[in-house]
């Protein structure tokens, strides 16, 4: 009888999980991983004979397994607290922050990024009256690696390689204006309410005054950043805040990619898979921000990655117009079709993560 009870117990668990997997309706997306989940593959003779059906079914079975997030957490907790692994899927926890271990330093990637910047300079800026600046945004691993024994790329070499490689643009060091507290716990990005010092440093170096009469707004929805899902560890979500200035009422943001006017901040994005898109609409190839009440008549052209989405609103009080270009989506060769270079300030500002994986820069 004892053996029968053991067999029946194990069978109940096993067949119960199987039955659950068979009948559970398929989910469309994984909110924690910010990606689409595999769906049941189309049945075709070609697919079956080529093995493609089996491969797609494997993905489907894993992606749609019931209690998937719970199981991912079990694995992450086992890895971290039983196996004593210092990272899980390349993400580690330190001081309450989920941090991606950026390692090793990819010199060829950074050289490629430098080449792209120099190409843009040579093609559009060399014969203009523009003033060129370059800056690097450190990722969280820059601040926390040593405390976790985590591997860390040679940030000093990266900064030197960019500073020396981008010969015609003045390097602005912002590392001294940031600490780990300025970043989200669950996301790669920085917290806009903590980077006014960065904006002041950049504007100051470019000779532009800024209005600092900020008002802080807190978004009610919790913010689960990209590392929250990847780490699959129990971390408290962040509170997302954004800053406004009196002049924002008159500021117009043009999304030139889609030909429409968009808000500076869109809280509706908090309910999407990419809440950080709250700032300037997220991943857009070309945006302009116009401010008739700017403190100067100067214009700024920024070549950027996603970090700049939250930074640019803090600079608009000093500039009549900011043009924001993302060459991950708009090839450098085509930038001249949309942007006229004359006497503006031009800022290249990229995060260490993008520089170390720069192949998307076009």
């Amino acid at each position: 009888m004892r053996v029968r009870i053991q067999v029946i117990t194990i069978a109940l668990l096993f067949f119960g999980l199987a039955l659950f997997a068979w009948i559970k309706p398929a989910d469309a997306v994984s909110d924690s991983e910010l990606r689409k989940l595999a769906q049941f593959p189309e049945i075709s003779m070609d697919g079956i004979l080529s093995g493609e059906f089996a491969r797609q079914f494997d993905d489907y079975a894993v992606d749609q397994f019931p209690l998937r997030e719970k199981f991912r957490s079990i694995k992450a907790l086992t890895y971290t607290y039983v196996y004593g692994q210092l990272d899980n899927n390349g993400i580690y926890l330190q001081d309450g922050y989920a941090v991606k271990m950026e390692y090793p330093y990819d010199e060829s990637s950074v050289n490629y990024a430098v080449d792209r910047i120099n190409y843009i300079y040579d093609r559009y800026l060399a014969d203009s009256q523009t003033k060129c600046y370059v800056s690097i945004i450190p990722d969280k691993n820059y601040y926390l690696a040593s405390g976790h024994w985590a591997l860390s790329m040679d940030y000093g070499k990266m900064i030197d390689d960019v500073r020396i490689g981008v010969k015609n643009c003045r390097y602005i060091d912002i590392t001294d204006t940031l600490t780990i507290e300025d970043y989200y716990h669950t996301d790669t990005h920085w917290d806009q309410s903590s980077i006014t010092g960065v904006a002041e440093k950049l504007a100051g170096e470019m000779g532009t005054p800024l209005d600092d009469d900020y008002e802080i707004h807190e978004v009610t929805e919790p913010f689960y950043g990209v590392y929250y899902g990847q780490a699959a560890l129990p971390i408290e979500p962040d509170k997302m805040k954004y800053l406004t200035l009196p002049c924002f009422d008159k500021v117009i943001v043009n999304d030139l990619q889609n030909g429409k006017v968009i808000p500076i901040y869109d809280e509706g994005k908090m309910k999407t898979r990419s809440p950080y898109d709250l700032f300037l609409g997220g991943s857009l190839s070309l945006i302009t921000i116009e401010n008739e009440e700017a403190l100067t008549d100067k214009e700024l052209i920024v070549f950027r990655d996603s970090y700049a989405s939250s930074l640019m609103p803090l600079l608009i009080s000093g500039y009549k117009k900011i043009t924001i270009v993302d060459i991950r989506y708009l090839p450098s060769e085509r930038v001249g079709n949309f942007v006229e270079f004359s006497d503006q300030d031009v800022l290249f500002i990229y995060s260490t993560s993008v520089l170390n994986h720069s192949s998307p820069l076009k």
Partner: protein
Amino acid sequence: MLFSSIPFLFYFLPTVLILYFLAPKAAKNAVLLVASLFFYAYGEPVYVLLMLGAIIVGYVGGILIERFVGRDAKKMERSSASKVVLICAIALCLGMLGFFKYANFFVSNFAMMTGVPVQILDIALPIGISFYTFQIISYLIDVYRGSVPAQRNFIHLATYVALFAQLIAGPIVRYKDVASELKDRKSTWDGVLEGSRRFIIGLSKKILIANVLGELVDIFRNSTGETVLFYWIYALVFSLHLYFDFSGYSDMAIGIGRIFGFHFPENFNYPYISASVTEFWRRWHMTLGSWFRDYVYIPLGGNRVGKARWFVNILIVWMLTGFWHGADWNYILWGLLFAILLVIEKAGLLRVLEKVRFAGHIYVIFVVFVSFVIFNASGIEGMLSDFGGMFGMAGLPIINDETLYYVRSYTVVIGMALVGATPLPKFIAMKLRNGLIVFGGNKSGELVWSFFETVVIAALLLMCTAFLIDGSFNPFLYFRF
């Protein structure tokens, strides 16, 4: 299809178990055969035809051999016709294996030696071909020797060859070991519990240990910051990885077989506690070792020949053992290394090692490390590069931050693997069970133990599921052998 995959665990296996236990006795083998063909065809549908061809060769060959052997089979008198059939059938099986597994090896070596440009063939190795080919050959030889009667029921023979439990990575089951169970077997509650326990333990060895160690192997292979210490850690980790991967698969195969009422042979017996290479090979991949002993070494004359011929026999057997594992020179060298060590041990070293067992353990661990570095190298060039790194001839630093990081990160799992590769966990479990019985009495002690065991099995199943869901690609190492 992989055992360690969600489709197998939660779609295929439950379906097969339900159909199998609902089917009448006469249809059980048919259920297993259809399920096995589906299992095999799942990822590589075309090659199921190749396997069916091999089964037909074995089926027809066995019947013809028996027909031509003559009635007085027990006197070991064999007609030349039966020998011709045997040779033809084996040649057909080995021909298929040779073409799909070794053609490119021979073609590329021919091209290298002659300088004649030859097109490399675009053929993929059918999974499990080495295993099922050897099973069919052993069946044919056993029929020829009169050890077993030819199987006239095609479904029975096809089930023996294609049974998904052991089809793609062993153990290599002899027909005579399961002949009676193919015809008549019984699944008992005890057998199902034992099989389930064995399967989950094997699954855990694969997913919770081998796959995690495999991550470190991959990290090492992709690292640009190698050190001497990292090379040695790689040698240690790969040795453990291979053991847990392969023995885990064998455990799963034996466990599934047990659920269906089969008793498959053991394939591993704690090889890393060996004190000599001779002992190691009595504990590692036991079904392959005994296959080569019975079907190659002894027919060549074994040790009942002159010393020179005996030495040649050993070289042949171990060269073939290496070559069976892979079509490259490093596998042949790997086999020959063991041949030389076994000859040295038989020449006198074994007696010394038996007296100083501690030294024997150190010696075996060193040999295993070196041999598996050869085994996992990318050809001869890769092997030399790995040895250069291990023995400080590549100008690498002894240690760096990257090595230290991974040592810290993987210490626990390496420790778990080191302990798990010894009989210690089994010993502790037995002690615990006996302690419960002594402390709580026979009935209560067994009850507590059963509860504890069930909880552990359930927890391991859930953990394996969690690891599979979070993980991605995790092929078994022995699939392609």
